[in-house]
């Protein structure tokens, strides 16, 4: 899962439980994961491209913005 990319579908930020849609090639589809910021920073609005920095099974990922 680490290194996979996706986009924010529910606002991710401090004090929030966000949601991201990440493409998982092994399962040939995109899945929703609960998302938290890997590093404290500005909240990521809906639609922001992200990259998975850390994966906590079963459904939690820590993300960072893929651009900038």
């Amino acid at each position, binding site marked *: 899962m680490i290194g996979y990319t996706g986009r924010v579908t529910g606002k991710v930020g401090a004090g929030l439980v966000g*949601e991201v849609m990440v493409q998982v090639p092994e399962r040939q589809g995109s899945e929703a994961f*609960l998302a938290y910021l890997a590093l404290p920073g500005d909240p990521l609005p809906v639609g922001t491209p992200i990259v998975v920095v850390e994966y906590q*099974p079963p459904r939690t990922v820590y993300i960072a913005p893929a651009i900038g």
Partner: protein
Amino acid sequence: MLIGTIAGVVAAAVILLIVLFKMCWRVAEPNEALIISGSKHRTEGLAEGLGFRVVTGRGTLVTPGIQTVRKLSLDLNEADLDVECVTSQGIPVQVKGVVIFKVGDDTVSIANAARRFLDQQKMMGQRVHNVFAGHLRSIVGGLTVEEMIRDRERLTGETRAASGTEMEKLGLIIDSLQIQEILDPTGYIKNLAAPHAAAVQRDARIAAAAADREATEAEQEAFARKAEATRNSGIQQAGYQAEMDTAAARALQAGPLAQAASRQEVVVQETKVAELEGHRKEQQLQAEVRKPADARAYETRTKAEADRDARISAAEAQARETELKAAAEANRVKIAALAEAEATKARGLASAESTRATGQAEAAAAEAKGLAAAEAAKALGLAEAEAIKARAAALAENQEAVVAQQLAEHWPEIVRAGAEAFGNVEHMVLLNGADGMGEMFAKALTMGGTGLGLARQLLGSMNGTAAPEAADHGATGGASGTGGTGATQKSGTHTIPVQGDPIV
């Protein structure tokens, strides 16, 4: 026979193999997961002693009798919610909704769900409802009524925050939470909608009133149009009725009118006959009397006009001829005058040239003559001065000799002057012949002698005034007039007696 037996055995063996393969080969459908247990199998993330295999989306061999294969559905499930909640504003509401969930697609979620729901898959909705009712209360407690109604982002965010971790434990994923109905015992939502409803009702009433007004206006206009049409129709009907009555009245009067018309036609025809008769008589008179008279008058008038036109044409031709002659003469005269003027001008120019040349020649000649005459006069003057000087000297020396020389030099002129006295005589009568002739000539010549006497007197006066030494010697100057005797001179000078008779 043997071959058939062998073939039958082979076929049976093939069939047996197929049956055995079908018993051992299990395939997982796309919407399900195979949970295979019964063999020692270590799976990442699962504790030891709970070994089972999770197969999704492919086939696998199982050992019948040794391994057990169970299916866990990965389909979508939903659970209806009906929960009494209190919003963040403290308003009690009854929320009816639906939560849509499914087993997670990853192996860990499938394993978690399999441990919890493998034998209770049909009860999964009830379990989720029971779990989610408490979560929904916490979710609604963090929202206002308006946010529940309008802010879906906030609702889904609160749902994830409240139930996400809990659902992970169960191996489930909440795909969607939908609030279907909010029952409001306090009437909050109704009151919330009241202003908008009133505004909408107001707008609706205004629109209805406007529409009613427009409809009424249209109806009244339609009524007015109908009344107008009715009026117009009545007017037209009355007009048509009047026309019908008029036509009926005319129909009633048609008989008398027809009789009168026929009578009128008879009168008209008779009048026409009379007019035609009168016209025939008039035509007859025209043909018998007026036409011949007109013809004669026309003939006379035509002849007179022809004579007049002939005379006019002759006069005009004569005038034209005269005019042309005069014009030709004038042109000729003009051309002759122009030629004469040109010739005169040329002659004048030539004459002027010749005159100018002649004048220049004459001027040159005169200039040369004048120069020559001047030179000659100058030389003559100088010579005469010299001669006068010589004569004066000679006179001073010997007057008589000078006078005698003068007479001798000018004797022909003296005689010519005496003869001029006879030049003006037309008839001369000689009375005494040759003697008279001689006497005449003698008298004429004595007139020339008069000049000699005058010369003598002049010389005498010159001697008296210009010779002081002669005065010193007592010589007398001047003449004593005609017939005077000669004066006494110095020694050496002789007086010439001249008889000065008066001219007869």
